[in-house]
């Protein structure tokens, strides 16, 4: 459901897109201001380097403005922009040959998974993980896991949208997200001080399946 504010932002965005197509300098600045934080944040979290993130965000916006005439509105503009940004960052990472965990890799490589967590005690993460630690944990993920985790759990995209953005299957997106979560959990567990390992079998309460989780949208 869209409220008035969202509609207004959407109207501003649409007008800015039309202005950009017409070559209006102010429209470019408007569109940049609407999306600069999300694009830069995504770049920064994906590459973990402010200087590289700045270059990549600039390249993403340059490509956006060069190609904006081809935007037909089949998908949300932000999805289009994110797909473009992710592709630029992934291309950059491929050129650098950094920690390779391919987005096309099937999730059957159990050697890549952390070993401890399957039978480990409850980490009781709720409210315990501060944002800085979580940022560090995300930064330590292999790029494939990191990309999917950022798009899904941070940016709020659905798996079908992610599949569209990064060019993989929905199943692959799900499995990469699962691996990312396992790794993050293992990292956070290693940070021991953040967790309260007080829960015992005696205090164990089964999960209520009526507690249906909504998607993040």
């Amino acid at each position, binding site marked *: 459901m869209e409220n008035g504010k969202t509609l207004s932002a959407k109207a501003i965005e649409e007008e800015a897109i039309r202005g950009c197509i017409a070559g209006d*300098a102010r429209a470019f600045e408007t569109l940049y201001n609407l999306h600069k934080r999300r694009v830069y944040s995504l770049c920064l979290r994906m590459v973990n380097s402010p200087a590289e993130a700045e270059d990549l965000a600039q390249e993403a916006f340059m490509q956006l403005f060069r190609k904006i005439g081809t935007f037909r509105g089949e998908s949300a503009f932000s999805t289009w922009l994110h797909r473009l940004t992710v592709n630029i960052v992934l291309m950059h990472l491929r050129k650098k040959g950094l920690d390779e965990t391919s987005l096309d890799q099937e999730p059957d490589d159990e050697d890549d998974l952390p070993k401890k967590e399957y039978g480990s005690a409850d980490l009781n993460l709720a409210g315990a993980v501060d944002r800085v630690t979580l940022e560090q944990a995300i930064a330590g993920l292999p790029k494939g896991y990191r990309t999917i985790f950022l798009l899904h759990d941070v940016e709020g995209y659905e798996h079908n949208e992610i599949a569209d953005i990064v060019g993989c299957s929905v199943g692959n997106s799900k499995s990469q997200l699962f691996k990312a979560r396992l790794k993050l959990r293992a990292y956070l567990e290693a940070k021991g001080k953040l967790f309260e390992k007080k829960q015992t079998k005696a205090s164990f309460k089964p999960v209520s399946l009526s507690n249906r989780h909504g998607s993040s949208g």
Partner: protein
Amino acid sequence: MKCIEMQSRISDWVDGDPAGMELESHLRTCQACASFHADVTALKQQASTLDLIDPPGRLWNNLRSQLVSEGVIRVQAEKQSFWRGLLSGVWIPSLKPAFSGAILALLFSTAFFYYYVQRDAQPAKVSSEAQVFQELRQAELHYQQAIEALSEVSRRKIETLDPAMAQILNDNLATMDYYVKECQNAVKSNPDNPLVHRYLLTAYQKKIEIMQSIVNSDVL
């Protein structure tokens, strides 16, 4: 079904997939998987609250320059003051030494111009030493008041910039402070030399112009 397989399904369930009977019965009996469920739920919730990060201000300036240079956007020629144009150069860190050097070169050339023109063209003007010093002191006070008035505002403006940019501007202002100090020393050593008087006043004037550019510039 092993816990690792169950946890994969739990991850999907947290994102909205249906649970199923097998998962339901497993979660009733398996503490490890119940813990995993709680952790993933917390992790997902916490991840969704991570802050967005503002890019540095120069990103738009660089982007805009590239858009203009590639002809993607056309901008009308803006009337830009000399000093604002000069100041915009310091966005590029590598131009910092050139920026400071250009200011000093300008000051020296101005001073030498006056030196040669006045030495050749000026008849011997006689004014008392006291009167010259009084005029110089008045001019100095005038400039110092202007600098004082601008310093707080420019300092606050610089504080809003990213640290690298702020460092460059502060370095440039410090260069002018150093130059003012050198000129003051030169006046003490050569009180009768009109050249060093002009050096000093020009240094004040240029510092004020830089501060005005910082305060007024919408680029910053």
